[in-house]
């Protein structure tokens, strides 16, 4: 227990403190940007983007090795991830625009196919560069082991930038999430704003890959906003509550995970967030289940009395 306390108060060592701080910033950015996605009902688009990052990571590694590097530069790998995540996003948009298929089919198709391509490339790397690719698998489930100081700073900086952009674009994004047609009549370029919304989510996804892993990163974008929704009916409030839940959950998760080797960072963060979601769903006064059940029972009595 004292180990956890140490980690929470940033006493568990310089690296752990850095990782926890980076995670917290990323969590706030993810919660805030995820809110707009949730309101736009496109939460799972980011899942496809995350899975679509895998081929980019492996390709970036291969390119860096081909140019004589060790292939370990996090910035380089994340650039690859961003590029192929972006291609995945374009593929989804193309499928929904050009064909009769609905968005859910496009999401699933891109997710499965890009991830499949990533796995093919991964087996290729394993046969070509036996031993030297160590670390790429870490992107599947996230790993803070061997994380460098620069890596943690990169994550923290990235989170801060995304957060700032969210704040700058909060009004147009709220409008588009609520009523794209109306936003268009006001002269907003809804396509560009939609793209920016997805771009921010993609940025969070890519930045968080090393920490949380591509299978689970989507949880950071979905769970805090979904939990925040129970507490409020107002978008502006929801964004900040989601940011708060995301930041606190990520910080707590990273701190707990730093106390023992068998506590992988990504899963712990997700489980902490899930606990927050469960509590919110049950007890939040605005839209929680308990409050709703009480109101429903009261209405039932009233109606049966014929009031």
């Amino acid at each position, binding site marked *: 227990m004292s180990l956890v306390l140490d980690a929470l108060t940033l006493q568990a060592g310089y690296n752990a403190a850095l990782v926890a701080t980076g995670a917290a910033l990323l969590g706030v950015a993810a919660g805030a940007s995820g809110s707009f996605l949730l309101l736009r009902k496109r939460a799972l688009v980011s899942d496809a983007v995350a899975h679509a990052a895998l081929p980019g990571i492996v390709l970036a590694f291969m390119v860096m090795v081909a140019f004589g590097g060790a292939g370990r530069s996090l910035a380089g790998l994340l650039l690859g991830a961003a590029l192929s995540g972006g291609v995945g996003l374009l593929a989804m948009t193309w499928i929904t625009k050009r064909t009769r298929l609905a968005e859910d089919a496009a999401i699933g198709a891109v997710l499965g196919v890009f991830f*499949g391509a990533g796995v*093919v490339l991964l087996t290729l790397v394993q046969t070509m560069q036996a031993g030297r690719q160590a670390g790429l698998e870490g992107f599947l489930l996230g790993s803070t082991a061997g994380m460098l100081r620069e890596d943690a700073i990169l994550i923290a900086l990235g989170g801060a930038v995304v957060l700032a952009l969210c704040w700058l674009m909060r009004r147009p994004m709220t409008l588009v999430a609520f009523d794209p047609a109306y936003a268009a009549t006001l002269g907003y370029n809804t396509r560009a704003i939609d793209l920016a919304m997805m771009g921010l989510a993609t940025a969070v996804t890519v930045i968080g890959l090393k920490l949380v892993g591509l299978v689970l990163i989507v949880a950071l974008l979905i769970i805090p906003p979904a939990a925040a929704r129970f507490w409020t009916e107002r978008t502006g409030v929801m964004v900040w509550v989601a940011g708060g839940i995301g930041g606190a959950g990520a910080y707590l998760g990273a701190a707990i995970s730093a106390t023992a080797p068998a506590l992988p960072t990504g899963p712990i963060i997700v489980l902490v967030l899930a606990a927050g979601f469960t509590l919110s769903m049950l007890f939040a006064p605005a839209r929680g289940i308990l409050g709703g059940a009480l109101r429903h029972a009261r209405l039932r009595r009233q109606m049966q009395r014929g009031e």
Partner: protein
Amino acid sequence: MGAEFVQFSLTPILIGMFAAMACALPGNFLILRRQALIGDAISHVVLPGIVVGFLVSGTIAAGPMGLGAAGAALVAVVLIEAIRRFGRVEPGAAMGVVFTTMFAAGVLLLEQTGSAQVHLDVEHALMGNLEQLIWLRASGWASLTDPAALATLPPELTRMALACAVITGLVLAFWRWLKIATFDEGFAQSLGIPTGALGFGLVIAAALAAVAAFQAVGSILVIAMFICPPAAARLMTNSLTSQVCWSLLFAALSAIFGYVLAGYGPLWLGGQHAVSAAGMIAVVSGIILGLAALLGPCRKGAQAI
């Protein structure tokens, strides 16, 4: 195309085909119901399911792990529905909450109990081991009529064929109900069709396919097969019957070409090792979907008219 093919390629290709077709069948209805991502959710919760199955039974036998996976799929579906209904959370987000949480719990369990060392690793669950499901005792096509050799067929083949047959039977048996409840739920209810139970049954069938398939082909292939072949098939035709037939064809083609490309493609390009067959099958299914999106006769929706 002789003894070596029968020994090393025939059974993996057949298993891949059965797995792909078993997933594509329920996938058709999931897509038409805008529930494609249920397939995504199911394939993610398979991992915690097999971990629990392993922990409870202590063996890595297919039975308990399959049961665990099926149980996890059930739990996930019930949780998603509960969060959606009682929490008034939109379906996509409800799925995202449930499957990431269960997946995270599965990974944590795996790490905590050290079962990671017992041949039960995450990568395996994600990527499968189709290449290893070979028929060593076969000596050529004649083995197909040799009972002794047939007895040594990999058990995954029988299991996958059985799952495929069961799902085919269910889809045929409930064809009319599925069609009508997918198209017009309110009308179906007015006829007395139990649409709630039917929808649940469809998800269970999908879970059955995913559970049977993932041990051989991994969960990525499962997602891709739930969605790509039926999606491509939808762009080929405006009839439900033909759509399902096309999807089966596309699933089989993906499995065959994917396996062959994974096994021989690198050799043709001068490489020495095969690449992941499951991954390549997913890629081929994506290529088929891409072609259908470019050229399929019914690729455009009605709003264009």
